[in-house]
């Protein structure tokens, strides 16, 4: 039953990815000023949305770990696994954002990078979560998870700053897709459909690898606990 559910999830995700690609490349019309290069948007923006969602999951996991670490160790370990999975998969999506953005910028603005608020805060967000992963990889000792949880909470504070940056400050980055006022957003319904399908597809893909990363980390925790118990027994 579990195998069937996993197979079904993979099949649905692959179908969504293929459909999203088809919509983005063949169905959505060319944008009038940016032409074909605007199609990068169908991968760039959904990746940013999924990255933000996963950093939020990492935040919840970090808070959960700090809340449960003294009285419910099993819940704390599960929360910690969610925090790590969210941060790691979030970094993957954020990396995609930071590479596809400059590719679009080079054609649309004529430059690869500019230190405007949206770009800089996104780079800072990526650096914070890369630090989080390095801390988890190289720090040892019983305090590592606690330190990582605190860093994870600080990192997540940058997410609303990234989101609001092109509302709070004058930036070169385009206006927000949602909630940016009357002049912003997608006007063409065909573009909106392509965008919606790609959000759904990347969300499904992201959730699938998030679940796999969580599973691997839980197995890792169980393996480490068994090793520790064996060392005590010996």
């Amino acid at each position, binding site marked *: 039953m579990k195998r069937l559910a996993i197979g079904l999830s993979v099949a649905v995700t692959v179908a969504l990815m293929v459909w999203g690609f088809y919509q983005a490349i063949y169905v959505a019309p060319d944008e009038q000023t940016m032409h*074909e*290069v605007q199609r990068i948007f169908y991968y760039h923006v959904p990746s940013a949305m999924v990255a933000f969602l996963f950093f939020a999951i990492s935040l919840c996991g970090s808070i959960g770990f700090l809340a449960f670490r003294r009285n419910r160790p099993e819940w704390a370990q599960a929360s910690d696994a969610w925090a790590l999975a969210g941060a790691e998969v979030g970094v993957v999506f954020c990396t995609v954002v930071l590479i596809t953005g400059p590719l679009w910028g080079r054609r649309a603005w004529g430059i690869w990078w500019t230190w405007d608020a949206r770009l800089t805060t996104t780079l800072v967000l990526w650096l914070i979560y890369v630090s989080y992963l390095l801390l988890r990889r190289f720090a040892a000792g019983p305090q590592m998870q606690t330190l990582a949880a605190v860093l994870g909470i600080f990192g997540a504070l940058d997410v609303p700053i990234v989101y609001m940056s092109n509302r709070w400050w004058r930036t070169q980055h385009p206006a927000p897709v949602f909630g940016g006022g009357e002049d912003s957003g997608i006007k063409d319904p065909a573009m909106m459909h392509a965008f919606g399908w790609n959000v759904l597809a990347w969300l499904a893909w992201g959730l699938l690898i998030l679940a796999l990363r969580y599973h691997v980390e839980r197995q890792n925790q169980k393996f480490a606990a068994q090793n520790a118990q064996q060392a005590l027994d010996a």
Partner: protein
Amino acid sequence: MDERAILDHQFTVAAYAITWIIQLAYVAWLGFKWRAQKRNQDSRGQRL
């Protein structure tokens, strides 16, 4: 196709290809990690 359109096309293809390379590389790394973990657990089970 003029030069601008060709460059636009190349940049779009690069963005899509890089996205997939990053995502699939991560999934492959995760798969290897998972398999190594399973192998460790299996060999440990045989020892016990």
